[in-house]
């Protein structure tokens, strides 16, 4: 390169442009770090993914032999070979239903209030800190709360409803935070456009913000649910059952109106409790059951995560600003 003295500033006696050789050396050196870091990144990823793989293979090796149809259709039994997870997965399903039915509307509504209605002042700040803080409260504490509140104070007993409510509270912060995030990601000009058309605040919310925020909201809900489905401690605290050799009444099939919700007041067990119980049994055959059940549970979360990703992808396609 030419050493043409182009800079007029006297300070730049030395041009910062290096000669070609120097520059190439410099670039080579800098690029070495790139490669180094990329290796490091892959390594870090590998640690995570290998862990996951180890977990999976471990579970699979132990559990897959147990994964036959009876495993899914049998109730628990003292004989490991006959024990199944019927009551557990049905229970999990029902509890998740309650959780979703509570957490989704309440979480979205709360988030809407905080994001769209509430004045931005210290109260909102406090609520905000409060919510992030709730996200860090150990789940067992929710169990303690739920025991006092739902089981005893509200007299809901050790029911699917109590459990659903507890988990709903547990994931509420997640739903609220992600919903707020989703709402915040909707540009202000969309709101202004809607208001500009003469929409009222509620119309803006219901016609625009919620539908457009849906991908984010759903992701949050599903992530929350995935967390809830694996929770053990709070549900044990409120008194989930371990042995339950029958299913709750079929949802919404009883005699209306009261009968419709019989199921919600039924006793139940859920997957993690079944697993927890089986792992703590002395007979190693049960440990196999636990591995199999864990495998099922992890697959349920995987399924939910996949659903979240798919939904996010599907719904986002037509929403851009």
């Amino acid at each position, binding site marked *: 390169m030419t050493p043409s003295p182009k800079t007029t500033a006297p300070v730049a006696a030395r041009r910062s442009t290096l000669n070609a050789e120097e520059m190439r050396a410099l670039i080579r050196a800098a690029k070495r770090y790139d490669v180094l870091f990329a290796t490091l990144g892959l390594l870090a990823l590998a640690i995570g993914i290998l862990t996951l793989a180890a977990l999976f293979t471990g579970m699979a090796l132990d559990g897959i032999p147990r994964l036959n149809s009876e495993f899914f259709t049998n*109730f*628990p*039994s*003292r004989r490991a070979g006959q024990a199944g997870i019927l009551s557990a997965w049905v229970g999990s399903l029902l509890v998740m239903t309650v959780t979703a039915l509570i957490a989704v509307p309440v979480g979205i509504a709360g988030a809407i209030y905080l994001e769209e209605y509430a004045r931005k002042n210290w109260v909102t700040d406090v609520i905000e800190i409060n919510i992030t803080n709730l996200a860090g409260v150990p789940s067992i504490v929710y169990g303690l709360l739920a025991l006092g509140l739902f089981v*005893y104070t509200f007299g809901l*007993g*050790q029911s699917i409803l109590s459990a659903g409510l507890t988990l709903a509270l547990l994931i509420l912060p997640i739903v609220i935070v992600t919903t707020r995030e989703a709402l915040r990601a909707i540009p202000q000009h969309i709101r202004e456009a809607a208001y500009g058309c003469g929409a009222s605040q509620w119309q803006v919310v219901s016609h625009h913000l919620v539908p457009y925020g849906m991908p984010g909201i759903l992701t949050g809900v599903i992530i929350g649910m995935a967390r809830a489905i694996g929770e053990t401690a709070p549900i*044990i*605290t409120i*008194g*989930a*059952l*371990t*042995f*339950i*050799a*029958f299913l709750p009444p079929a949802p919404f099939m009883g005699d209306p109106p009261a009968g419709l919700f019989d199921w919600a007041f039924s*006793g139940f067990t859920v997957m993690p409790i079944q697993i927890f*119980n089986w*792992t*703590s*049994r*002395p*007979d*190693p055959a049960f*440990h196999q059951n636990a591995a199999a059940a864990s495998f099922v549970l992890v697959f349920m979360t995987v399924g939910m995560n996949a659903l979240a990703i798919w939904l996010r992808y599907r719904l986002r396609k037509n929403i851009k600003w």
Partner: protein
Amino acid sequence: QIVKIDGSSTVYPITEGIAEDFQKAKKNAVKVTVGISGTGGGFKKFCRGETDIQNASRPILAKEMEDCRAAGVEYIELPVAFDALTVVMNPRNTFLKSITVEELKKIWEPAAQGKITRWNQVNPAWPDAPIKLFGAGSDSGTFDYFTEAINGKAKSSRGDYTASEDDNVLVQGVSQDVNAIGYFGYAYYAENQSRLKALAVAEKAGKPAVLPSEASVLDGSYQPLSRPIFIYVSAKALARGEVREFADFYLKNAAKIAKEVKYVPLPAKAYSLAAEHLAKGKKGTVFGGKNEVGLKIEELLAREARM
């Protein structure tokens, strides 16, 4: 028609087996649920009248009796099996053949905390190797029982040991460490004999060291570490046919199931006595709100009979 049971996880396997068979026998006409809130958590519910039957790995305590009284819950105490707390070591351990209560105390008493850390401090015959301790969590009935039996005072124990609610965890711990010693329920030992070795316990120096086994428990020679476990049946619930039926069924089948899940059944006499109590509706506890150790079966039966 539901029979609700909750409480100890120790008793759970027996109750579960009973419930399973009972439901089958009743062709699912009666539903039985069993929870594992722990003896304490279970009693809370039981004394509020929320459960029909309580699994308990220890007798009801004064505080809980009071709660029950306050709520007007009366109960019938039914011992259903023995659990032999088993002192275990690593199978590769070569120097431990047996141990005396004395020595156990030396290891486990509060004063040992931080001091007794090597085997030769307990018994000079033993090598100069670190002691690795594993024991029940301090919130469990097992812990209470063991401390009372060994250290003479419930809940009086050194604190620097690995505790776990989950006995499998302890099994794991002991099986991994040559210098380990630990204690937990017999069933865990029984299921893991390949990985653990039970340690014969001598009640006193000079007395013969006894290994835990059905026979040694039944004949009362495994002392002081065998303890009875119970169910408490709510008197009010007993009025319901299915609960009574279940309780009867329980006592009838307890021996079989207990064996099956590796507990030590009570002598047949004990079950018939219990059945009698049940039939008569004899309420209350024979323990006066305290845990007791070293209770032999005969004594228990005697007390029961006195009720």
